[in-house]
């Protein structure tokens, strides 16, 4: 088989699946979001287990996995969320190198724990590059959502792959931790102390309004803050609307916003949040600014 013919054929795409790498860096000044893997920890682990370059493109699946046929020999790793996984009907595990032969069929069910799963492939998916990244984002990349019948090219190894037995145990901390570490946001000083403290005394739950751009919290936080002059915002920025809505921006978020920025998640908190589902409980934990 020639290299160009190696591809994954998508039989079922899952609920919301897209190709992601580390994202599109340094394009914010054009208004272009960074995008990239929502849970970077699981994404990086998947590439690491395959000895891939850290920016190798993976398939990110949300809530429900897909069904795929591989049309060349290769190796893959699944990380992140937990689900029933089978290769030609034989059960498989996450965090483990899976050896694939041409024609093999991989099936991933609904996720029993966690919200996002990564499928890394030896050498990374060879989908098109826009502005130095393969991450899918509507309007930037040629595709933004995986569909049945989609073709995902990869480079079939020319030599026989050495058998990799890399395996790590499942990181329960990532999937079960409810603590979201945050720095005080640049407009947090406009909140009265008692309201700011509520952010850390109360528990919050994720609303159904969630996607790769952001996650809205169910509970509201009464406040008297006004909208601000539009400023830069980032993945992990927590915005507070005058109506009390708390919105956490994620990897596909736009680069500017007009709501007060009351908190900023650190990188590992973004990863933890990326694995949370609607209704899940979280608690913010303030990182003292001396630790910054």
């Amino acid at each position: 088989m020639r290299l160009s013919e190696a591809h994954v054929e998508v039989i079922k795409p899952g609920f919301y699946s897209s190709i992601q790498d580390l994202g599109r860096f340094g394009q914010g000044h054009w208004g272009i979001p960074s995008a990239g893997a929502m849970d970077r920890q699981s994404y990086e682990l998947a590439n690491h287990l395959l000895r891939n370059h850290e920016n190798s493109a993976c398939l990110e699946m949300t809530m429900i996995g897909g069904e795929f046929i591989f049309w060349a020999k290769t190796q893959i790793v699944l990380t992140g969320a937990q689900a029933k996984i089978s290769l030609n009907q034989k059960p498989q595990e996450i965090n483990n190198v899976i050896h694939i032969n041409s024609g093999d069929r991989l099936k991933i069910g609904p996720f029993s724990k966690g919200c996002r799963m990564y499928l890394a492939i030896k050498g990374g998916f060879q989908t098109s590059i826009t502005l130095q990244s393969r991450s899918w984002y509507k309007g930037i990349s040629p595709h933004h959502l995986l569909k049945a019948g989609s073709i995902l090219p990869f480079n079939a190894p020319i030599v026989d792959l050495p058998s990799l037995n890399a395996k790590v145990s499942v990181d329960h901390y990532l999937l079960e931790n409810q603590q979201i570490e945050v720095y005080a946001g640049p407009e947090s000083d406009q909140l009265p102390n008692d309201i700011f403290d509520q952010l850390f005394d109360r528990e919050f739950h994720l609303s159904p309004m969630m996607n790769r751009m952001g996650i809205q919290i169910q509970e509201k936080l009464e406040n008297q803050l006004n909208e601000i002059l539009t400023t830069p915002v980032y993945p992990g920025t927590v915005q507070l609307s005058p109506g009390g809505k708390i919105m956490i921006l994620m990897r596909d978020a736009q680069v500017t916003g007009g709501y007060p920025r009351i908190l900023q998640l650190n990188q590992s908190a973004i990863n933890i949040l990326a694995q949370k589902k609607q209704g899940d409980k979280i608690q913010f934990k303030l990182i003292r600014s001396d630790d910054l």
Partner: protein
Amino acid sequence: MTYKLSYKHISPNILEICWPQEISKDILLQMMTYKKKIISIWYEELWDAHLGYHCLSLNFKEPFSLDEVIGQIEEFSQEKETHSILHRKRWQIPVLYQGKDLSRVAKITKLSVNNIIEEHQKPSYLLHFFGFMPGFMYLGGLSEKLYAPRKDQPDPKIQKGSVAIGGQQTGIYPMDSPGGWNIIGLTPLQVFNLKEQPPISAQPGDEIKFYSIDKKEFEAISRSIINQNYTLEYETI
């Protein structure tokens, strides 16, 4: 003019330099001067530097030393500021003013459609920054006479190139998108073109001037864009 700057340590990798909270040309030009200088100092260390109305955000590849970075910024802020180092341009954007919401805007503003079109072409709009969506320009300078609130029911799809008014702002939709702004016209230009590097010609600090074209001119420009012999017009300012 000298402004008092404040620094916001957003996260280990991100620093914001903020000017007083106002929408001002002077602040924008000073931010651009700073941006240029900062990129020349930390080119290798930075992923990106991007703007809001009054804050300049520096996104470092690695956690940085706050004292060191602020120290250097304070040092060059003592130097005599020269806006002349900015090479600013004024871009001419052709618009076919036949947007579907012209009559709505006419009702709100109590102006005739012809007056709206005339008023919209008068100012040179200042490009403050890109945000909201890829390639979307935040333009300052819309005439108060043309302020028109966003629609309660956003349109599911606004065509790429649409020129619109949303509240106190005017702008061009760089790509097809849902949106609640009032559509007053359409430019045949590809404002945001991923096949070009950079994808947008204008940059913050530049000015945008709209001029009216008719259907025939619209088609002629569209054709020359397809044939790749259209050059966007600008003057140096």
